[in-house]
């Protein structure tokens, strides 16, 4: 379950000095993407991660620790607070990085155009470190920074590494269905300047997959990723059944090699009772792939099914109630469910400018 564990006394703790860097920063370049890896010791429950910016458009921080971690604040080079966790703790969601849900957290910044550009200088991300009881504690935090140098935020390519679980690539029904769905996924993204560079692999991973991060196989899978691609694992079942048919590791998802660095999708749930892919099945499967990878790139549902939680974007209708929301957002790619009438479903292939902007600001969109 997604849980947020917060000590209420958090805001009373004083700000301390500069980050306590443990060792040298390791830096690597891969085209427009730079990777910096280093470790920081937390102090009074906060690890301060410095992000040197010199012309990059976006960065992604993946912070990992033996304790629970979540982003608490971001400061720009002038020391101005540009994000504070409590501001995104209500009924609007901007980033899953502020949720204390595990031993790693992923922040992509900026998220939206209104968050501004990355000015040159030293940005600082404050990462809270909390024990299982909800108390601040101190621990080493391993930081992996990915920085994108790509001034064109209207045209981008996402690399998708599509990995079939054991034997599924050899099943012609599955491989043909997946490839057709990927074509639909590309069709959905195309009008928004998003291109897909998809590669396919077979594997020996189990056809029944756990949630992202809850299987040692996911860590093994992540080790083989390039660091600039999104891994999509095609399974038969998830958690032993049909409850889940697509799950993203987190919002946003990491480009680092953690156990949550993937999207898991069930081919069987998307094929249905006949076990084959009709044209309608393919269309929905493609939209499901685009939807789940959309979460991975930082998109939330424009509205949740309780009709009282929304994303942080101004141009997705803040609708209230089922009829209002289906009417206003039912064709949106990130709507929480397909609008169907028993025999067919509406196409869901629309993104607003705000959603498109989030997708292009994802550091893996190059």
């Amino acid at each position, binding site marked *: *379950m*997604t*849980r*947020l*564990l*917060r*000590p*209420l*006394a958090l805001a009373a703790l004083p700000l301390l000095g500069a980050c306590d860097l443990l060792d040298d920063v390791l830096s690597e370049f891969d085209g427009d993407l730079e990777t910096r890896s280093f470790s920081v010791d937390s102090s009074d429950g906060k690890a301060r991660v410095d992000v040197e910016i010199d012309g990059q458009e976006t960065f992604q921080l993946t912070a990992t620790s033996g304790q629970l971690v979540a982003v608490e604040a971001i400061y720009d080079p002038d020391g101005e607070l540009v994000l504070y966790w409590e501001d995104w*703790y209500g*009924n609007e969601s901007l980033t899953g990085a502020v*949720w204390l849900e595990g031993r790693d957290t992923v922040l992509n910044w900026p998220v939206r155009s209104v968050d501004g550009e990355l000015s040159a200088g030293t940005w600082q991300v404050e990462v809270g470190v909390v024990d299982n*009881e*909800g*108390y*601040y504690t101190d621990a080493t935090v391993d930081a992996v920074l990915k920085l994108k140098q790509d001034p064109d935020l209207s045209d981008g390519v996402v690399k998708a590494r599509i990995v079939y679980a054991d034997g599924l690539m050899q099943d012609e029904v599955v491989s043909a269905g997946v490839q057709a769905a990927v074509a639909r996924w590309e069709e959905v993204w195309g009008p928004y300047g998003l291109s897909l560079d998809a590669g396919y692999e077979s594997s020996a991973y189990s056809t029944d997959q756990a949630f992202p991060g809850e299987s040692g196989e996911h860590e093994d899978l992540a080790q083989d990723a390039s660091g600039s691609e999104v891994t999509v694992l095609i399974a*038969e*079942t998830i958690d*032993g*059944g*049909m*409850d*889940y*048919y*697509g*799950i993203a590791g*987190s*919002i946003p998802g990491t480009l680092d090699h953690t156990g949550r660095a993937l*999207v898991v999708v069930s081919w*069987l*749930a*998307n*094929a*249905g*009772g*006949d*076990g*084959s892919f009709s044209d*309608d*099945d393919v269309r*929905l499967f493609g939209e*499901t792939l685009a939807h*789940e990878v959309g*979460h991975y790139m930082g998109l*939330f549902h424009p509205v*949740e*099914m*309780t009709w009282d*939680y929304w994303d942080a974007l101004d141009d997705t209708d803040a609708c209230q109630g*089922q009829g209002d929301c*289906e009417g206003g957002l039912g064709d949106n790619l990130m709507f*929480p*469910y397909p609008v*169907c*009438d*028993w*025999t*067919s*479903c*509406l196409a869901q292939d629309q993104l607003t400018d705000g959603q498109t902007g989030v997708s292009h600001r994802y550091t893996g969109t190059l």
Partner: protein
Amino acid sequence: MITSLLLALACNGGKVPPAQAGVVDAGLPPTPAELLAQQAPGAAAEPLAPTDAGYAVYRALSVRDPEPTCAEVEALSPTPVETLREVVDRAQQPPWAGMRAANCLVQGHGAEVQADLVAWVGGADTRGLALLVLDQLDLLPEDVALAVATAALAGPHAADASARVPKSRHPALQALVP
């Protein structure tokens, strides 16, 4: 120090807090077919119109995420087994609605629907349902699982069954595939 345990209320990879996962809309939308009619005028066809309970269960099972639980959807019908059968047999889209309904029958009503399960593993056009059952044999009572596995190994999906039946924890099922 006071500890606060709160639930985040946005879909995170489809895993959501129980309070939200339990939300289903039992009420029917005003005119669901109208939205489709707007997209494809004249294309509406309802040869197998659902019952009210069937449509309520269907809607609950259709969500992309958060995913509903079987208990939640079954609470929407006075006769859940019959209603789940209706969704399996008649709902056409989205594909996971029928599969989730079948999943609930396998996980909660295996003995009662044994004949359905045997029919699924023996049907040439029900490979998806057959795989769903074969992947969950150990959730069935052992005698039901044995009957289903035996039928599957003799049916059109024997190759699929041969790969899955030996994974059962029951020696009697393992012995079906030498």
